[in-house]
């Protein structure tokens, strides 16, 4: 450059400036829409706040109320059940489909796109409503079972034993994004390892358990953490399909939070619920990371 005093144009052309300018939209957005609201929410969680009137500081009252509230524990139980059943099922499903689609044929691309589709649309309101109709008393699922000889239609959404399962199945069906991640890491495994295994006389089954799975563990771990967080934050399905009914058997934690915040105008309490959820998710993620060294292979190939 030669010249010590850079013109504005030259300053803008430095690498540092480009970096700052390019990340600025994100940084501003992050501060404005994440950090500031989080701070406000933390403050609200220590307040009596009903949305309509200004918040009044009330100390730990909201947190104390929570632990005496039966519905709080119910919603927590429901959420744990949902996350701990749907996430492993979803991952197993994703892995199986990824293994099937791994082999390249002309149609593979189309199949991959098709299986990915539910992940894109699965969290939407439209699919939730569709799901509700599928499992309705006069819905398709009942019609099929009736054709197969069932006598009375089953109230899938109205029975405390089955309602949560309709939501779990919906969640498992959205396996696409995990599947794509599995697919890409399956491709990373060098062919030479399989050739070596074959020479050693390993069959396909042994190859899967001894070569594929161990080398996939870091991907499984990544998927597990991400999906677990998603599972705990699930909202749309319960809010649209069951609204926590029947008898709170499908009351996700987030739905309970929403009800308290906006329907019963206990917004301060709702904010406290949100922070407890953050702590729970943090704890679970930490536990997952703590177990990592026992089962995740992170060496090279």
């Amino acid at each position: 450059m030669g010249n010590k005093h850079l013109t504005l144009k030259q300053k803008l052309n430095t690498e540092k400036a480009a970096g700052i300018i390019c990340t600025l939209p994100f940084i501003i957005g992050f501060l404005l829409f994440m950090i500031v609201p989080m701070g406000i929410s933390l403050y609200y969680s220590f307040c009596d706040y009903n949305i309509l009137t200004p918040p009044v500081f009330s100390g730990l009252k909201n947190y104390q109320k929570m632990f005496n509230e039966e519905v709080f524990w119910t919603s927590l139980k429901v959420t744990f059940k949902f996350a701990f059943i749907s996430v492993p099922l979803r991952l197993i499903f994703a892995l199986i489909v990824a293994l099937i689609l791994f082999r390249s044929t002309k149609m593979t691309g189309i199949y991959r796109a098709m299986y990915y589709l539910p992940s894109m649309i699965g969290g939407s309101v439209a699919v939730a409503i569709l799901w509700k109709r599928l499992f309705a008393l006069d819905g398709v699922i009942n019609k099929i079972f009736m054709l197969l000889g069932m006598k009375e239609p089953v109230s899938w959404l109205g029975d405390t034993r089955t309602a949560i399962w309709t939501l779990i199945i919906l969640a498992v069906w959205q396996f696409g994004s995990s599947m794509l991640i599995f697919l890409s890491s399956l491709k990373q495994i060098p062919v030479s390892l399989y050739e070596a295994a074959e020479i050693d006389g390993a069959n396909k089954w042994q190859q899967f358990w001894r070569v594929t799975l161990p080398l996939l563990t870091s991907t499984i771990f990544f998927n597990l953490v991400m999906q677990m967080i998603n599972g705990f934050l699930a909202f749309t399905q319960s809010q649209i399909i069951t609204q926590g009914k029947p008898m709170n058997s499908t009351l996700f934690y987030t739905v309970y939070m929403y009800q308290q915040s906006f329907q019963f105008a206990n917004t301060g309490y709702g904010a406290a619920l949100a922070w407890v959820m953050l702590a729970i998710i943090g704890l679970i993620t930490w536990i997952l990371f703590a177990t990592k060294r026992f089962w995740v292979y992170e060496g090279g190939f």
Partner: protein
Amino acid sequence: MKKRILASLLCAVMTAGVLAGCGGTAAPAAGGAAAPAEGAEASSDAAAPAAAEGGDTLVFTWWGNQTRNERTTAALDLYSEQNPGVTFDAQPAAWDDYWSKLSTAAAGNSLPPLLQMDYSYLEQYVSSGLLADLTPYIESGALDASNISQGIMDSGSVDGKVYAITAGVNAPSLLYNKTLMDELGIEVPDYMSVEQFEDICRQVYEKSGVKADLPYMAADNYLPYLARANGVTALFNKEEGRMNMDDPSPMVDYFKVFQDGYEEGWIIGADIHAELQNNSVEQSPLIYFSSPSTQAWCAFFWSNQMAAMAEAAPDDMEIGITTWPSKDPKASMFLKPSQFFSVSSNAGAQEEAAVKVIDFLTNSVEANEILLGERGVPASSVVADAIAPLQDETAQIVTKYINEVVTPNSSPISPAIPDGANEVYDYANQYIDQILAGAMTAEEAAQATFDKGNEIMASKK
């Protein structure tokens, strides 16, 4: 090669996402541009033109049903025609969603200038300073209230100031399938007692398998109604922070009906309600069912909802109307402002325009020839008389029901409910679920509601 396929696949997926995102925003924008050009057309679409031409688009939100949405939109169209340049962004919602939407908007200081208000929320909204004082407009004559009776104006006033104009008068009413009852040869009398009502439920269930639909997730309706018959006009005592009764006995009657229904099998259970939108006219089991076991012969609603119910009912079904069962109908029954029109305090420059619309909806005979008393018998006596001959048979039945059945045999309305009451009602709703699952008795539910109520009211004191 494989990686390239994957990469292009991912690209395609992302592009699709972006396109979908753009599509979502592009459509309403186009609508917004088109609306003023087409002579100011109000849209009932939820994704209506967003503030197309700055200040001239008035956002108007209400809860309701299909009939109300259609008629209100048509009346607003008429207003736009008579007042070129004024357009509306109509945002109808269902009752359940309406209040969470409104309170969120209130928190963000973005309440729509024109909104529908309910008696049970009026006090809360006024004390939070969210509604505009309409008194100056009434004094200046911009809002003509000369044909509205003082009693009706009072119900929309807080501390002597008018914050809400009654849109119509209504009363609790039991809507029933008259065609079915005629077929079965069962008569449904006015002023039924709870015993008579249960007797009819049993007969209908035995003869046809059709059940009865009691208010589900709506303890705020029938619970206070039956408590009034036990001498408790206000359930909540805000000043002392407790339930306004010494023991839970005045509430037992309410839970007992559900318990009887569950034990004898004639009640629409939680399993069927799990699939329905709560308290929606269109999804009431009275008219929305697939077999007798999901059908109801009656439903608990309000008189002004009969028009929408008759509209949504199958063609061969005639809807009848009578009082909600109670052992003391005179003590239980009351007339109620079905809903109000209010102007929000953050309407700002649009305040005057919004008041003008309320004046139009209240006093214009032309507008009410479109609305036809769907929100209840019009508050203005001049308008009520003018549209009476135009009303269809259903509306005339409703007017007759209000004037001849309810008015001579009713008591004043209970005071507006305080903060925290809706939470108590929600607990009552959960206990109803327990009763419908056979996990609780009426006495236990009443006791639990009493305990929770005292606890919640104490915390709100």
